Structures are given as C-alpha cells and as structure tokens.
C-alpha cells in the first residue's frame, strides 16, 4: 500500500508539492524497477512473512523494518537528475545534522555518516512530476537484513567488492525524532510553510486499486 500511495500522489499532485513520511508494517523488502527477483530471497521473505514489493523507481533492494521512509512529489524540480537528488537530500541531511548526525549526501543517491550508508534514495519522473522516495536506517540488524537481500559478491566477474554489511550503519534515533527533524528541515531548506494533509476515504480506495493492480500483482513483482 505504501508504494501505491506514492504512485497515487504522483498522479494527483497539484502545484503544491507533497512530502510524506511513513513506516512499514509488516516489514517489507522493496526491489528496484530493474532488479531481478532473484536478487532477494523471496522464499525466506514468504517464510518470515516479510512482504515483497517492486518499486517504480530504480536502485537497489531495501529491507524496510526499523526505518523511516519519506517520499517527495513535485511538479517543480531541477532539470538535471543529480541536482534534484542533491536538493531533496539536503532536506534529509540537514534534518539529521540537527540531531547530531554528520549526514552527508553521497552522489548519486546515498546518505552517509562516517563513511557508511544510513539511507538510500530513488527517483522517477513521469508526465512532468518528480517522485523521490528514500529511507533512513533507524536501527539495523545486518544479519537479518542481508538474509533477505542477496548481494552476489562471489559472482562478480572482474572485481572484488567490500562486504555490503560493512557499508551500512544506523542513526540510532526514534522515528518521531527523525520525522520532526525532517519536517523542520523541509521548511528551512525549501523556505516554505507546510500544511498537514490526509487522504480522503475515496483517495484511499483509489490507492487500494493501484495496490491491487500493480504492487500486489505477481506479474509486476516477478516481471524481471
């Protein structure tokens, strides 16, 4: 349903951008548009009752459990993709900086602290609308995370890559702490005011249809 809401916002946003903050229950593995379903252990996900969803954005697989996810939807954005990642990620890094986390934007699409990844982002643009969503790792159980995400370290033809478990870390803050920091940062970085927004019941029903047609549809999830 989370991905369905992001897609709904993308197709219904007005000239007023939307910034959304959400979590996941039950836990979920999301995979990027271009990833093979074999890049994750979908059987283990089924066994452990972890949802699997394919995003409409590229990028890598993400285990969503103890983390905060955001999405930003707008009709106004920089023309260059790297510039738009930088602009939106500045909201994230500035917010985390106020919590004492030395968060930095690492192009193209990562947020790092002390050289390790604490968040990833992915973006798509359709019909003049930009959607960028991303995650911030509040707490991470690396063994658990990488039991679902299959990184083919041993299969790389021509290069050694570092163990992905060594590349990630957590911010060790609560959901509410990070959420507040992002809301405050959004106003400062984009010099704007914000208005709370909730979806009406008919909009929720539209999101359920999107979820049924795409994100819960095995033809979409297993398309690659």
């Amino acid at each position: 349903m989370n991905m369905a809401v992001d897609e709904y916002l993308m197709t219904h946003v007005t000239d007023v951008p939307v910034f959304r903050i959400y979590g996941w229950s039950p836990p979920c593995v999301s995979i990027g548009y271009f990833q093979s379903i074999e890049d994750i252990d979908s059987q283990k996900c089924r066994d452990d009752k972890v949802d699997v969803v394919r995003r409409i954005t590229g990028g890598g697989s993400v285990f969503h459990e103890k983390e905060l996810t955001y999405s930003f939807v707008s009709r106004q954005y920089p023309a260059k993709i790297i510039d738009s990642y930088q602009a939106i990620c500045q909201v994230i890094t500035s917010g985390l900086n106020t919590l004492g986390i030395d968060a930095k934007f690492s192009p193209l699409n990562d947020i790092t602290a002390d050289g390790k990844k604490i968040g990833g982002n992915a973006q798509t643009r359709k019909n003049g609308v930009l959607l960028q969503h991303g995650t911030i790792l509040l707490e991470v159980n690396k063994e658990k995370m990488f039991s679902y995400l299959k990184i083919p370290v041993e299969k790389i033809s021509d290069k050694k890559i570092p163990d992905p478990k060594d590349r990630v870390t957590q911010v060790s803050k609560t959901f509410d702490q990070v959420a507040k920091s992002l809301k405050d940062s959004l106003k400062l970085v984009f010099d704007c005011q914000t208005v709370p927004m909730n979806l009406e019941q008919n909009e929720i029903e539209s999101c359920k249809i999107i979820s049924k047609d795409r994100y819960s549809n095995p033809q979409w999830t297993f398309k690659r």
Partner: protein
Amino acid sequence: MVSSINNQNSANSVSVKRYFKFEKMLCVDLVFDKITNTIQAIKITGDFFLHPEEKIDLIESELVGTKLEKNQVKSKLESLLSGCELYGFSIDSLSDAIIKCKEANSH
C-alpha cells in the same frame, strides 16, 4: 512466474549469465547463437537507474539480432539510449559487459 529468457532454444543457442560491478551492479543474462554470433535474447538487471524506466524493455527486445561485436552492440545501445539518462554504468561499460558474456563462454 519469473520471466525467463531461457526458452530461446536451438541447437546453436548458448546461455550465459554474468554479474559486473560498476558504480552500480549489473547482471547480463544473455542467449546467443554461437554460429551467427547474434543475440537471441538478453535481460539486463541491476540496481542502476534509467530514465525513462520503461525503455529497458525496448532495449532488450531491440538488441535481439545484434551481432556480438563491440562496435555493433555499442552503436545499437547508443541509438536506443538516445534521449535517455543512464546512471550506474556507461554505454561503453554495458557494451563491454555484453561482449564479456560471450567471451566468458568460450573459455
């Protein structure tokens, strides 16, 4: 339910699947005719970004029939990716990876 490209069977078909690490991860799943040296099917997966995203299906279908020579693969990709934005590897790297798949089979 997983779409498979392994149904392109003929006596001359060879299937190869290889992973490559550039800025992003790339997997090339290739079926080619070892006599005519042409692509019969290809799947390009990974954690990269391509805008617009839907272009990947056209790229994979249009590469079918392409001769597995670097210049021809690269030229075809340049044409198909004209107007697109690709992040994670270059067209040159992708072309090299496809050719390496073919060459990996000959070892």
